[in-house]
């Protein structure tokens, strides 16, 4: 356990950006800070980098009080959203900067710096670009330079602020794998800020899901998937169907079927709103099929997958994600039975005074947030 963040608060004017963040990061771990904009993830990163000072709370790295150190003294590698490459220096000079500015006593020799730069150019696979200026590079190349520059000082922590935000989808996927490889090669403890759940889940050992300055859940991607701590986590991580139900003894009862509740543990009995994923949704056209009677409205293609949009008698719109083959059995206008494999109970929605399970449907605010 190397990095300890404990009870960090930070307020901008009246806006509470961080409200009591506590988090332990293990040595060599890859952590993703995930959340919608305004959730505080970037602020937390800036606190770690020393760019923002928390109002209170503490941060220790290997037992050293991190907040007592200035940004300059922390020896962290920070990759900025827009990379912030020094535009008047070549790629090689950019990478060498952190070593060149060291006091004479600790500064490596010219040859050692040169060797380190070559090593990093190779690690980030931009050999041959050392003499170029940032303006002459593509977005992906710039990002590699930014990572190399941050790694040059052998940082105790590598912090990345939405490093893929400015790249197109193809380059982004490629660099994602690259970043994980660099992490595994160097073993540097890495914290990545992103609003893209796919990115966070694909890269990180553990994901820290943040919302409104709080941590909603910390866990491995699998844990977040199978045991979401809150309806927010569930809706943030994927497409969601919403349907009113009756909770009894840890199961959600719908018209025509019952589904197990995976979260929250021990949901109170009574009327509630259930959330479930299109990929956990099944359709059956058999004459004796169980389930909620729905009518298929539309079938849309998406690669080898099909999204089947259905409407219940109550008016709720529900989407099922089926394989191309499975969807072949259905057509628009058909009446079928719908079941969900597992659901999450939205306690917040149930507690709302204006709660009316009959009136709601897909597209409620929480679902739209994704």
């Amino acid at each position, binding site marked *: 356990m190397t990095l300890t963040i404990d009870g960090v608060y930070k307020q901008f004017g009246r806006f509470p950006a961080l409200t009591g963040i506590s988090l332990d990061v293990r040595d060599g771990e890859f952590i993703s800070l995930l959340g919608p904009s305004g959730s505080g993830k970037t602020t937390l990163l800036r606190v770690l980098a020393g760019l923002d000072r928390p109002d209170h709370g503490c941060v220790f790295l290997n037992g050293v009080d991190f907040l007592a150190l*200035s940004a300059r003294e922390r020896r962290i590698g920070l990759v900025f959203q827009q990379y912030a490459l*020094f535009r008047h220096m070549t790629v090689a000079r950019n990478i060498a900067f952190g070593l060149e500015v060291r006091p004479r006593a600790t500064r490596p020799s010219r040859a050692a710096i040169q060797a380190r730069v070559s090593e990093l150019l190779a690690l980030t696979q931009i050999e041959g670009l050392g003499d170029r200026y940032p*303006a002459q590079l593509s977005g992906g190349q710039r990002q590699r330079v930014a990572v190399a520059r941050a790694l040059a000082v052998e940082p105790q922590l590598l912090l990345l602020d939405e490093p893929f935000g400015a790249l197109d989808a193809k380059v982004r996927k490629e660099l994602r794998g690259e970043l994980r490889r660099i992490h595994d090669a160097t073993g540097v403890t890495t914290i990545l800020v992103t609003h893209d759940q796919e990115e966070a889940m694909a890269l990180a050992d553990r994901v820290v899901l943040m919302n409104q300055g709080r941590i909603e859940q910390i866990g491995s991607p699998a844990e977040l998937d199978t045991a979401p701590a809150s309806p927010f986590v569930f809706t943030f991580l994927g497409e969601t169907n919403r349907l009113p139900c009756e909770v009894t003894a840890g199961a959600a009862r719908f018209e025509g079927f019952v589904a197990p509740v995976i979260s929250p543990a021990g949901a109170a009995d009574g009327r509630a709103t259930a959330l479930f994923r299109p990929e956990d949704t099944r359709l059956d056209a058999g004459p004796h099929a169980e389930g909620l009677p729905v009518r298929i409205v539309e079938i849309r293609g998406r690669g080898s997958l099909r999204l089947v949009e259905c409407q219940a008698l109550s008016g709720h719109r529900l989407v099922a994600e089926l394989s191309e083959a499975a969807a072949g059995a259905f057509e628009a206008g058909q009446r079928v039975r719908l079941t969900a494999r597992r659901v999450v109970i939205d306690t917040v929605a149930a507690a709302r005074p204006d709660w009316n399970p009959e009136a709601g449907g897909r597209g409620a605010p929480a679902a739209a947030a994704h």
Partner: protein
Amino acid sequence: MIPRGLEHRRVNSPTAVILVTLALAWLALIIGAPLATVVVEAFGKGLDAFLAAFREPDALASIRLTLLVAAIAVPLNAAFGLAAAWSIARFEFRGKAALLTLIDLPLSMSPVVAGLVWVLLFGARGWFGPLLEVAGVKVIFAVPGIILGTILVTVPLIARELIPLMTEQGADEELAATTLGAGGWTVFRRVTLPNIRWALLHGVLLCNARAMGEFGAVSVVSGHIRGLTETLPLHVEALYNDYDFVGAFSAATLLAGLAVVTLVAKTVLEQLIRAGQAVKPAQELAIP
């Protein structure tokens, strides 16, 4: 059919010919003619008469004083411009707008008022006049007053070049340098300064031209003592009032030459600045 007149940049329609001719004629009348007058009057009596104007000890003294004033005022205003830009473009604090307004204020001030205020402070009947008299220091009708007047007139010129540029560039590069372990001075010298060097030079150039050519403010505080407190523009005035037109226009040619050189250097610099900015927009960055 493509509507007519959409391709700009070529003078091919009657309207275009008329507009370009009108514009050029107006510029020739308003700017070209006075400039030509200076040269013609200066060389009208031959090269010898022109050169004779610079053999006068008073003329040489005025050139020396002009250089001295600029050599003090310009570096001070450059230091101020850098300090102001660093604090305003790199930090958030209350009262920033008020500070910016104050810095801009001398631009809307008559040069004569910019001289007057120093007389109000340091003149014989100024606030600090008696004090200075006791101390035996002369500010008004002396070189210090000329320097102060020049500084006040030119104080915003460099700051106004740097503040918008540094605000637009943002602090990310400096912050990156800091997290990489660079100290304040290193950050300034190796990251900030290279990014603003052309704009700084541009500001220095304008500031210098204005400082060397300042007339109104300097005229109020100088006292017009030949050979002692006369800058080159004041020397021009004195010669002109003495009906030494060749001398006046010869000295004026020197100043006009300075202006033209400044304009040429400024144009070159602006191209460099534009080239430097072109570095920034990243064409390849496709926003998803």
